[in-house]
């Protein structure tokens, strides 16, 4: 059991509830056509939040599409997350004061960036640990391998957090790799891997803290495998009934990490119904506010997607942009593609 104050434990609970509320609400928003495709985190909150919670402000995280819990833990405004899922890239601009990297969709490709950033920080003698998230299927990619190998060779302060949620869309863990654990993959790169119960937030925190400690002492990278389960569908476009039984889902529902923490807190007299209700209600209010904020954002200007191709606009981009604006103006006689 890692050392945590009562306030910290309550904060963990609050973050988990906030994440769950975000998740369930986002699902509904998609169903109502108010945001686009969404990938739920339900069931994995302990892995997500435990790992991010123990970082310092100057540490970095590299989340994927599924790590809403990590984002929330690190202080990302909820409306920015919603803005992204609503199909507005401006939501991907991380506020300057947060050390969160912008998520990327291609699975397994971001750990290399995390390793590179850790390398740069080390070169600059900054006191920084970098934590990069991925699902278990990401470990099948070539880029995962190269990232692990670089982290090992250059002894970098990186923590590879694998949320092994048992599935890659429909493909079960057993078909993803023959290695008995994901954790043992670290042996191939000459450093430690540890497997923890990813639904036990204290186990997650302990393993992450150890990894951070190790990195801070210049002892290089670690891999932390959090064994968990995705309770929801892969995304709003998926139907998990095609590839798994409801019994299996039910079984894992009983290990719901939020309920587990709640029971623990109840035993320790840290949780009362009142506290629970209040936490939940505040989370819902935060979410409602975020939805209002997101939905009252002005539309991006029509040519906004030309703004960030290069730092300095090239002639060709300039002409294409002008063409678009003219076209949207419906002065049809004049347009001619540049």
């Amino acid at each position: 059991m890692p050392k945590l104050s009562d306030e910290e434990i309550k904060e963990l609970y609050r973050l988990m509830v906030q994440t769950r509320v975000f998740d369930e609400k986002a699902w509904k928003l998609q169903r109502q056509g108010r945001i686009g495709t969404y990938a739920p985190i339900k069931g994995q909150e302990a892995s997500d939040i435990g790992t991010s919670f123990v970082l310092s402000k100057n540490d970095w995280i590299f989340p994927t599409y599924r790590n809403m819990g990590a984002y929330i833990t690190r202080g990302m405004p909820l409306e920015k997350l919603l803005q992204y899922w609503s199909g507005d890239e401006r939501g991907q601009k991380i506020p300057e004061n947060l050390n969160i990297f912008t998520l990327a969709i291609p699975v397994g490709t971001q750990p290399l960036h995390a390793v590179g950033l850790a390398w740069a920080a080390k070169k600059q003698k900054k006191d920084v640990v970098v934590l990069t998230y991925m699902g278990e299927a990401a470990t099948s990619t070539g880029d995962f391998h190269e990232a692990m190998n670089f982290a090992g060779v250059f002894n970098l302060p990186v923590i590879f957090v694998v949320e092994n949620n048992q599935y890659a869309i429909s493909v079960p863990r057993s078909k993803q790799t023959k290695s008995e654990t994901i954790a043992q993959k670290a042996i191939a790169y000459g450093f430690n891997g540890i497997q923890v119960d990813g639904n036990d937030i204290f186990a997650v925190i302990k393993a992450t803290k150890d990894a951070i400690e190790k990195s801070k002492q210049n002892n290089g990278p670690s891999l932390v495998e959090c064994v968990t389960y995705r309770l929801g569908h892969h995304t709003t476009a998926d139907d998990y009934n095609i590839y798994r039984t409801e019994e299996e889902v039910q079984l894992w529902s009983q290990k719901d990490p939020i309920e587990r923490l709640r029971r623990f807190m109840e035993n320790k007299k840290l949780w009362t119904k009142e506290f629970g209700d209040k936490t939940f209600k505040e989370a819902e209010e935060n979410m409602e506010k975020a939805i209002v904020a997101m939905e009252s954002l002005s539309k991006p200007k029509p040519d906004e997607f030309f703004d960030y191709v290069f730092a300095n606009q090239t002639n060709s981009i300039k002409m294409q942009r002008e063409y678009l604006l003219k076209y949207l103006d419906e002065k049809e006689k004049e347009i001619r593609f540049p």
Partner: protein
Amino acid sequence: MSQMNMVQSINQALAQEMERDQNVLVLGEDVGVDGGVFRVTEGLLQKFGEERVIDTPLSESGIVGTSIGMAVYGLKPVVEIQFSGFIYSAFEQLISHASRIRNRSRGRFTCPLVVRTPCSWVSRGLEHHEESTEALFIHTPGLKVVMPSNPYDAKGLLISSIRDPDPVIFFEPLRLYRAFKQEVPDEIYTIPIGEANVVKEGTDITLISYGAMMSSVLEADEILKGNNINSEVINLRTLSPLDKDTILKSVKKTGKCVVVHEAPLTCGLGAEISAIINEKALLNLEAPVIRITGFDTVVPLAKLENNYIPDVRRIVTETKNLMKF
């Protein structure tokens, strides 16, 4: 004959070729139990079993690379890459190996491989889920590149691709999957690779396109007709090798040409078509060959998506302007 959408016609093509030829097999992420994230491979696992319908680890390079080995040994792997935006990690296997094994081994080894992959812009897509990078493959010697634009073409072209002795990249425009149905023969039939289809004859101008943009071009053509512009419309079907003869014959007749694609402008297929016309039909040209294409930017997410994709109005407007050149 049945009314089918493109998902159904591709599914039927796969099933029929697998039925006909024991060596054909399907592999990729989620193609088995799940039947593909777009349900294109639905039912195949049940019909042909795990040995021939294979769920793989998440490894695009691994899928393509091992398929190369299988193709060398006499099998006919039909690979699914879940989105063409995820094909890049398999790029080396395609560009340095699949396309070259026949040449490198002077014919001792060959690579009859099909890579099916959804492409093109789709409404509300995530990043990397709506890419049009066919030009990268067209530029690569030793690869064939095919892109159907309706359920009928999809079936016939896919069957030809499976039977082709060389590697074929088979792009499936995502937004056509369920966009419309069409009469599709239930029997096996093929559509030759390397031949464009003159969808509609005309005299005033040649409109060339392929894939999902064909629908917009055909719609534009209807409007242009109302403006007394009688276009000839060419659906390329195969992007590499390109059917230059059909293109040139048409442009020599009409003297004008518009190429439409949603891939970025610079060094896209439109450039190649324009260059060919310039080289071989300059004296027939009565106006510049113009390209109506996507911009040289990343495809924006939902909020601005409509500003990226060439739409019917753009095609109509530009064509009308060109007619006045």
